[in-house]
């Protein structure tokens, strides 16, 4: 089965693409491998779950950091918790078909960007710009109430706006330093330069010519 979609790309140019099942599998594999390298596993855990038909991948994303949750659609009083989880569903047709993300409706994130049904509001899906990586990144940063990724202009739960803004103003949010979410970059440093090497030896400045009178 092929999936076709017409969309505006990053430059606003209208494009039409179609992807096959093999394309979807390859895109999912690549993005999943990148995802596994990206986060600090002490704070962010990502586990595969059994998919249902029509789904290519189903992940449970958990952030072990202070967060806040709501319990019913009418609940407006956020409660504290030490971890928060969401389910991410990548459907067949990815990356043309967008990703869906849900919280447990009885334990969903208190955020202006989460619907009262528990569905996470992710930004508009732009194929080949949006990806599993961008969605998971938005989710994990939402879970620590990082205002850098919160969109107040298009709110899924406007009842949480003032609460969220107050938290940000008081310095309570984000609940942890967002840098802690990520794996430290293990970039091999170049070998320390030898102090006696030619490159580091200070050359004596030549004497000035005698002053002319």
């Amino acid at each position, binding site marked *: *089965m*092929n*999936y*076709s*979609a*017409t969309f505006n790309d990053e430059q606003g140019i*209208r*494009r*039409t*693409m*179609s992807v*096959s*099942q093999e394309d*979807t*599998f390859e895109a*999912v*594999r690549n993005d*999943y491998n990148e995802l596994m390298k990206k986060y600090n596993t002490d704070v962010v855990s990502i586990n*595969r*779950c*059994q*998919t*249902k*038909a*029509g*789904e*290519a*991948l*189903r992940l449970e994303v958990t952030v072990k950091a202070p967060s806040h949750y709501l319990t019913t659609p009418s609940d407006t009083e956020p409660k504290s918790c030490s971890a928060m989880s969401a389910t991410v569903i990548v*459907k067949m*047709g990815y990356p043309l*078909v967008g990703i869906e993300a849900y919280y447990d409706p009885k334990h969903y994130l208190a955020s202006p960007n989460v619907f009262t049904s528990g569905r996470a509001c992710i930004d508009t899906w732009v194929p080949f710009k949006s990806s599993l990586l961008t969605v998971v990144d938005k989710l994990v940063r939402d879970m620590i109430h990082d205002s850098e990724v919160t969109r107040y202009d298009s709110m899924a739960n406007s009842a949480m706006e003032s609460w969220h803004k107050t938290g940000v103003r008081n310095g309570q949010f984000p609940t942890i330093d967002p840098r802690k979410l990520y794996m430290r970059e293990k970039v091999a440093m170049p070998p320390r330069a030898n102090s006696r090497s030619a490159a580091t030896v200070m050359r004596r400045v030549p004497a000035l010519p005698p002053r002319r009178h």
Partner: protein
Amino acid sequence: MEDRLYNPLKLSEYRNMFIGKRVCTIGAGAVGTYLMEYFAKMGMSLDVIDFDSFTLENAAKHSGIIRTPEDAGRNKAECASMRVKPLLDEGCESNGINSNITNFGPEAFADYEYVILAVDNYAAKVLLDELIRQIPEERRPKVIMAGTYDEMASSVILDHKKFCIRCLLDEEWLLNGLERTSCVGPKIRRINGNTEIVRTSNLASSMAAHLCAEQIRADVIGVPDVMNKRITYTAYPSLELSTSLPMRKNNCPGCRIMPPQQITWLSGSVIDVTLGEAFKQIEDKLGDSDFNMTVHQFNFNCISNREFYFSGVCRCCGSKVRIMKHEGRITEDDLLCGACASKDVKDQQGSIRGEGEKTLVFNKDNSKELMDMTLFDLGYPLGAHIEVLQTNGAMDCLDEGKQVITVFAFDEDHTKIHTISKL
């Protein structure tokens, strides 16, 4: 006086070569009705699909087989098929189907030698391209797209080996695929900021049909180098006929569509077989009861329809409404609750997407009500390729090689199209 319709002594010596050939014409409009007349007289069997009805103003462009004013208000396909019956040669058949092209799957067209596209919107052309590309190459019919623009008529015949229908369409034209179009450009043009309908004459329409019929005739009798060519007739500014060789479009989404590697046949037709009966047949074929049947998926006018809705939200009051329909068949009226349906709520706008209870698959855990519904009512079109997924313990697509997808089709679908009158 002879009582036979066709005297072989006075007709083409090649005429016998057309007897038994089957043609499907999609669209019984200005071009389609002329085509039906030509095909009937050529000695072919023909089926025609159209959802629209004749109006009085159609008389100015349509073939003389349509009677005025008595045919006004009748479905174009049913009416044209009936009118052409007296012209059919011995052993030839004609069937008109009052339906939309979205109700047909790839196998519905696999029984034809030629499929003619005489429709006025690009969304239908792109969908037919997808359907034809999903038919295995050895059973794939040849396609002819005929149409008009101004006083120009054009017809392209293709076997999908060098290019596809979508290669012939500018992607810009597909932005609003439902806009009235012809095969050579949008039928709305803008001059000095004013919008104007591109006018065509009955001569251009009949000429487009004539070019199409000539291409079929040449192909049947074996004229060399007929395939994958466009013939264009222009009446203004000079009267001329020209041929050209269309080329494959760069990164054409249509050309990327491939047929399934293997199709497993089930007995019956999607119109008659219920979900429960289909499950039994599939279970027998697979020797396994642990599988999921994917809901039919099709792309129309740049929208992917692939979910079955159990319920939705009333577009007027927001209350829950029962739907039980495939996403592609839901109408605005389906999104009204009983109370709101009795009020005048024409101005209310709503969308089904993202709301309601829906599913991407059917499986053995579905309710009895669902199991008793026919596959057609569940959204599978006539001639559908039905995908069945066996997970075999695989968690997801990262478990390579474990998941198995089998494509099934029903063996009576391709003949059913010759007898049904409405879908």
